[in-house]
């Protein structure tokens, strides 16, 4: 369970570039919740994720993950239980290391290997990595000795997803992780995401610019504006919603129309 209370963060305080990125934000995610997030450019979606992962410490507020106060916990400590996928597929893997070596790194998060710094990749590990890669259906299981830099963006993102969920995280953060991929690959990675998240009931937050996706995926839809969550729908109310309803609701709550160029583009794509 993720619990965030009165989270505030201002970047460059006291300068002309001062930007209040998160403002008294409150959010509670129940175990197994899969929430999608939409919002304008600069609404604070990525900042929210970075606050959770600890890329920076928040100015004010409380973040509790699974009963543990992580507000001031160091980034590398809390990332042990947090999976994070970025929009840029190059960010999640080490290009000059092989697929096998990348996966071994992800496996480091397992509790049992906490004291296994001097252990090498065992044959059993390799077999397990192979099995998991085969599930992707991308033929990566036969390329385990190849450097990750040779893979396509979609393959790298699928591998990153596998690595982020190899040890089931307490929360999985997906920051438009399919936005930089071509439509066919994006679909594949998205289906894979859905499968993994649903099978393992992983608590998940996903930023998307595709309004239809925002309503179709998961069990909750959040809308963000000016560093806050302005709309939170789930259950029956969400099931009956159309993209138009969502946009209308947003205009009502935020007092302005949604101005995200990519959302507008995706509306054109879908129509």
């Amino acid at each position, binding site marked *: 369970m993720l619990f965030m209370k009165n989270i505030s963060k201002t970047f460059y305080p006291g300068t002309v570039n001062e930007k209040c990125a998160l403002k008294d934000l409150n959010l509670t995610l129940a175990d197994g919740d899969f929430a999608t997030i939409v919002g304008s450019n600069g609404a604070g979606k990525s900042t929210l994720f970075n606050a959770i992962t600890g890329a920076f410490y928040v100015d004010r507020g409380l973040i509790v993950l699974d009963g543990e106060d992580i507000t001031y916990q160091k980034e590398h400590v809390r990332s042990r239980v947090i999976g*994070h996928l*970025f929009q840029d597929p190059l*960010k999640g893997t080490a290009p000059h290391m092989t697929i096998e070596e990348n996966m071994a790194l992800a496996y480091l998060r397992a509790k049992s290997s906490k004291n296994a710094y001097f252990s090498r990749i065992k044959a059993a590990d390799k077999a397990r990595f192979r099995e998991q890669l085969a599930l992707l259906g991308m033929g990566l299981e036969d390329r385990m000795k190849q450097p990750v830099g040779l893979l396509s963006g979609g393959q790298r993102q699928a591998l990153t997803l596998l690595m982020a969920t190899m040890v089931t995280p307490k929360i999985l953060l997906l920051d438009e992780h399919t936005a930089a991929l071509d439509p066919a690959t994006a679909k594949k990675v998205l289906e894979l995401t859905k499968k993994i998240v649903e099978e393992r009931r992983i608590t998940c937050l996903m930023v998307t610019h595709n309004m239809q996706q925002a309503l179709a995926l998961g069990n909750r839809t959040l809308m963000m504006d000016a560093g806050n969550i302005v709309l939170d729908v789930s259950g029956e109310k969400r099931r009956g919603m159309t993209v138009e309803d969502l946009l209308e609701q947003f205009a009502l709550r935020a007092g302005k129309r949604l101005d995200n160029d990519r959302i507008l583009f995706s509306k054109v794509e879908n129509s």
Partner: protein
Amino acid sequence: MGSIITLSIVQSALELGFIYALVALALFVSFSILNIADLSTDGCFTLGCAVCATVTLAGHPVLGLVAAMAAGAASGFITAFLQTRMGIQSILAGIIVNTGLYTVNIAVMGFASNMNLFACDTVFSWAKEAIGGTWYKLIVAVVVVLLVGIFLAWFLNTRLGLSIRATGDNPDMVRASSINTGLMITIGLCVANALTGLSGGLLAQYQKSCDINLGTGMVTIALASLIIGESILGRGGMPKRVLGVVLGSCLYRFVVAIAMRLNVPAECLKLVSALIVAFAIALPYLKKQAAFLRQRRAAKEENQVFLQQLADGQKGGEEE
């Protein structure tokens, strides 16, 4: 060429090549793997030399080598501490430590700028008694490099080694995957500088002397060896890359030996190393530039006729 390269030149080039290969391996860890230009290498090399000379003089050659490694690791720890805990840029951290080490090195040598070990036992004099012949120095150097090489090839494939490699390869990924980047940089620099110190220590026993200016330009020379090695064997698995670095170091010493043989003054060698490093690092960029220039020339030739026609047509239009 037969008169230029004699057996004794080959022999001493190999001996120095293997001894200096340890510094090249150190830079392999800090520069190639961690992506940090560690400019404390010069001072750290002299530190290893001075510490080893002092301990050897007291009658403990093996302990001297161990002490040289420990001193190197300590120096690496300080460089890493400055950049991971004090927020100092990595290059600056190296320069600061390098400057400070000058005083430390002079102090280790008893506030003298040089010392000699002519009267005392070294690992080389032990080897001479045990093995005899003329190859004993090379054998000692090869054994040490072999041990270090095997250690590195093993270490860089352990989970800790993988974490260190990932830290240099993609810091974004590492932060998101529960690896402590500060700790990895610290461990990496400690290992690298321990090797630099060992190299300095071995050299002190090899030439039975130590001088405060011994390390000057060491970082450039080691980089030259590293780059020569990587361009010969290319990228690949860790054992292959480690082998390439050792090969590069030996090759560099051959170039130096031949230059000396051709009466190039010793003072000029630093300039030669600097040129090799500058050229080798610039090579990928120059290749790209050359490809662009070729492309531009080809495009110009291809479109020349059309451009001419366009110009003629415009002129014709004006006349009408």
